[in-house]
């Protein structure tokens, strides 16, 4: 009896593994579905009004369990998006227009664990930020690869708890959004700048504005940004705050363009990205259901700094 049971168990395990397939290419049905998805997104994008209000989502991709702890987002190019896990430095390259995880790789030869909060792409380099302000720099990897990294200490761990990072091409620097000010005035929204060329921090915050001013008429007591990105069309800084379910748009000078609640379908918005053709992407960490990436039509504005 035990032998027979073990044989059945082993057989089922093998079958389960085999059923997952080797992952090379798509089946005919999948290829057709992906084609339909691309067309559907184009149609929805054209049909969506480019006003200031967020309309209905264009798509909402349900992420696999291995990406349940999805945190930051960063655009690799016009179709590919980088998403990373909160606790493990595992990066997924996602074709966000068709809803496909193209490949996944890990940072560090032994698979780093930590509290990773945001990701940014600057040219051919990728930066991952931990909540203590440490930056990890690495190059994109192939499927299953473990890439080597360089570590940069911003020395801001005692100043701030960080939750987001973005690449600002205009100043060739990284923007570090402070979720919670640990030392100093807690009632201010603070964003630091890290110079990529010098691999060094710009000592003074690039933005430090009263939180009240940002909140405006919204019914929030505080504002804890969970990610930041730069709108390539306008150069504006776009932030999300998971706790308040807030979406904020600021000019590089620190003027508030808009602050609005996110739709209810965002239980824990941990990442944000904006494409050049006006798609806003918001990632949500899994809570009662799976992690997701949601696409919205992002209001088109007059470019103040040119489209990258």
């Amino acid at each position, binding site marked *: 009896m*035990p032998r027979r049971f073990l044989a059945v*168990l*082993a057989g*089922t*395990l093998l*079958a*389960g*593994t085999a*059923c*997952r*397939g*080797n*992952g090379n*290419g*798509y089946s005919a049905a*999948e290829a057709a*579905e*992906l084609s339909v*998805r691309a067309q559907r997104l184009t149609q929805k994008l054209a049909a969506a009004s480019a006003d200031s209000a967020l309309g209905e*989502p264009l*798509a*909402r*991709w*349900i*992420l*696999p*369990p*291995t990406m*349940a702890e999805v945190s930051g987002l960063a655009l690799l190019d016009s179709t590919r998006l980088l998403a990373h896990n909160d606790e493990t430095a*595992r990066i997924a390259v*996602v*074709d966000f227009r068709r*809803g*496909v*995880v*193209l*490949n*996944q790789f890990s940072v560090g030869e032994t698979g780093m664990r930590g509290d990773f909060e945001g990701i940014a792409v600057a040219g051919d380099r990728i930066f991952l930020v931990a909540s203590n302000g440490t930056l990890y720099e690495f190059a994109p990897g192939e*499927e299953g690869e473990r890439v080597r990294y360089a570590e940069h200490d911003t020395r801001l761990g005692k100043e701030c708890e960080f939750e987001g990072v973005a690449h600002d091409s205009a100043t060739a620097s990284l923007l570090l959004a402070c979720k919670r000010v640990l030392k100093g005035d807690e009632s201010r929204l603070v964003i630091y700048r890290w110079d990529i060329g010098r691999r060094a921090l710009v000592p003074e915050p690039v933005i430090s504005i009263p939180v009240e001013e940002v909140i405006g008429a919204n019914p929030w007591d505080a504002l804890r940004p969970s990610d930041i990105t730069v709108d390539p069309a306008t150069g504006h800084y776009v932030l999300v705050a998971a706790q308040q379910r807030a979406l904020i748009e600021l000019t590089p000078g620190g003027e508030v363009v808009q602050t609005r609640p996110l739709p209810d379908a965002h239980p824990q918005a941990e990442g944000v990205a904006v494409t050049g053709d006006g798609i806003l992407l918001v990632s949500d960490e*899994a809570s*009662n*259901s*799976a992690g*997701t990436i949601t696409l919205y039509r992002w209001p088109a504005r007059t470019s103040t700094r040119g489209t990258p």
Partner: protein
Amino acid sequence: MSVFTRAIDLLTLGSDRPIRRLIAYYVVLAAVAAALAAIFPAADRLLLGRGITLPEASPIVLQDALVATESTADALGANSFTELALTTALLLLGTLMLMLPVSWVYMSARREPGHSQAVAQTLLILPIVVAGIVLIVRNSLALAFSLAGVVAAVRFRNTMRDARDLVFIFLAIAVGFSAGVQTLAVGAVLSLVFNLVLLLTWRYDFGRSALAPTASSQWREPLATLATSNGNGTVPDRDIVLALTPDKVDLLADRFERVRDVLGSDRKKPRFNAVFSFTTNSIAEAQVLVQKVLDKMTKRWMLDEVVTHSGKPSEVYYLVRMRKAVSRDDLLTAIRARAGDRIGSAHLELGEAAVEQQEAV
């Protein structure tokens, strides 16, 4: 299972010592887990709290939540029914394997004889149920509250006979939890350390009052006195008494304790009041003859012990309840008359109650 037993025998060189066999069990279990993890990389995830879910090979076509409804499997974090069923089955099997040695220790390592079969079975079943509940409730506050409501509606009241039984139950719950959160490694260490500590405390009688003498320490002094030539009677086998090792003193002390329990003055109406012993080279035949006399001349008797020796006569001991009318000499004479050619020496040791009885007569 016989392969498993053979592996344990191989590791312990056939030793019966419980600690060795226990460690060997865990070594074999670890080897099986390592082999399983080597063949199926997903298996080691159960030990480390990451679940069996494998990172899927890319590309992965994602589901659009706006087009299709979210499936239960997505909510549970498992890719398929097979995966979910396998995860659960492996976890529960692992729990059972970890609790088996705990139940063995529960049944064996105790000073007082007897254990509760219900508790022994509970030790195997409880962690499986706990693991199942944790697997279901995990990550769901609503389910956790529902469970609390259901449990509150059912009354569990049971008084444990031994406080240590309660500790075993707590351990069963802890191992169940570790399986439920898919961290069997913690459960394995918990089970191993618990068993080893318990066996060591049992082996060294930890917690015994230093003032309470053990059976052997109680009898060591009288035995030494026996072996000393002090002019108070003769010691037939003085050299043997002097040559006794501590283990043999323990064995002898156990026997003395048993006899004293039967013959001692503590009991008001002892069931037996004398010990009859004889030596013989033909045990079976001598026993038949002696027992016929005992049937006839004593109130009751019971065979207590047969001690066989190589190279010298064996010893046979009977517990006897003497009749008032039959004296010590009467009985010994009758036995000599009936079985004299089969037995060597014969002794009848009267307990205090019997001596008083004989004196009264």
